[in-house]
């Protein structure tokens, strides 16, 4: 380890305890380390703002809280008449075609759809047919309990990775459908006002609004996604 490497480490994390060999021989780095530790102590003191007295907001009863739409079973959000879904989807498709930005949502629908479709192109490994389930600890890392609760009823999960959509890390899962892999993107921070239909080369799918976020489901052109949507939505619940 040289001086530059050591200083980079210690300035990123003053508790870094590696590089002992270098440190014992380099007085300049010893001084730099002392300086960083001292700076950190002053930063800590500067950041410790006085805290106002705790005042709780009015807290609703259990029933009211449970009825609030912020923490929802995905299934709850899905239960709408088919005709309503159809109308919403048609409206959104039209809006996307003319490039209308939907107010209050902060996401241009066609760009989110484009990003989801483009993402699949960049992860071809996810689209290989497989019968091997992903390990439980890998799944837990990709879908931490602080983001969502997930059970295995969605289907055989053969792929789980953290990916970036719209600048945010999201769980990217794959289950096996009748016509090949089905991609599931859990996007707790991507609100959409209504379902967005996805149409790519040889694939199709949908981004469904779920609570404060959305879930993308994409499969092969021949895949009957309606059949698997309910299973997927039943198996996931946002934690926040």
């Amino acid at each position, binding site marked *: 380890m040289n001086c530059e490497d050591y200083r*980079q*480490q210690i*300035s*990123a*994390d003053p508790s870094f305890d590696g590089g002992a060999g270098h440190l014992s021989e380099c007085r300049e780095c010893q001084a730099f380390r002392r*300086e*960083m530790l001292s*700076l*950190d102590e*002053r*930063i*800590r*003191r*500067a*950041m*410790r*703002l*006085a*805290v*106002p007295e*705790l*005042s*709780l*907001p009015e*807290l*609703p*009863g*259990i029933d009211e*809280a449970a009825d*609030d739409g*912020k*923490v929802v079973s995905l299934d709850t959000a899905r239960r709408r008449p088919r005709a309503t879904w159809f109308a919403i989807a048609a409206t959104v498709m039209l809006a996307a075609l003319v490039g209308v930005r939907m107010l209050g949502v*902060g996401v241009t629908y066609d760009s989110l759809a484009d990003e989801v479709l483009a993402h699949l192109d960049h992860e071809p490994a996810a689209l290989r047919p497989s019968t091997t389930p992903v390990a439980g600890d890998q799944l837990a890392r990709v879908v*931490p*309990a*602080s983001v969502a*609760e997930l059970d295995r009823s969605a289907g055989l999960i053969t792929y789980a990775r953290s990916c*970036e959509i719209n600048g*945010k*890390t999201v769980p990217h899962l794959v289950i096996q459908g009748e016509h090949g892999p089905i991609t599931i993107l859990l996007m707790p*921070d991507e609100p959409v006002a209504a379902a967005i239909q996805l149409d790519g080369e040889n694939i199709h799918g949908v981004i469904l609004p779920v609570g404060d976020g959305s879930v993308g489901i994409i499969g092969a052109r021949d895949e009957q996604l309606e059949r698997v949507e309910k299973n997927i939505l039943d198996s996931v*619940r*946002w*934690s*926040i």
Partner: protein
Amino acid sequence: MNKSTAEAERRQRFDRLVTVWHADMYRYAAWLSRDRAIAQDVVQEALLRAWKSLHALRDDAAAKQWLLTIVRRENARYFERKRLETVDIDNLTASQSALLAEEPDEELDELRESIYELDDDYREPLVLQVLMGYSTSEIGEMMGLKQGAVLTRLHRARLKLKDKVAAD
């Protein structure tokens, strides 16, 4: 268990968690928003959301990160709603200035002002590491960043503060 007992137990659990972690929630919100009044609003919204979602917190040992994640989201929602302009440190509101006027300690005041002026991308991981005690991998998880990106931001944040302190 009847409904009133369940409600009372839920309330006791909530009060216990909030008593322990309220200060961290407030300080995190204050350094994210750089405004005491906004921080109080964000914490109020976060408390309400935490109350409604309490059943989702399986392990109280994970409460701190859970609550801070809620604060982070509420802060983002607040700024999405309000679309506030970039803060100009020479033209602060009373509520923003109040964040800097903590105590009569000139050295700390200057450092606090330097932290205040850091970009959000640098200030937030620094708060999470120095004030909240999180490791770089935990910060990466909370901010949706790779650990390498967190290390780079922390490195740059400290160098900026070091240079600023040296210049002053």
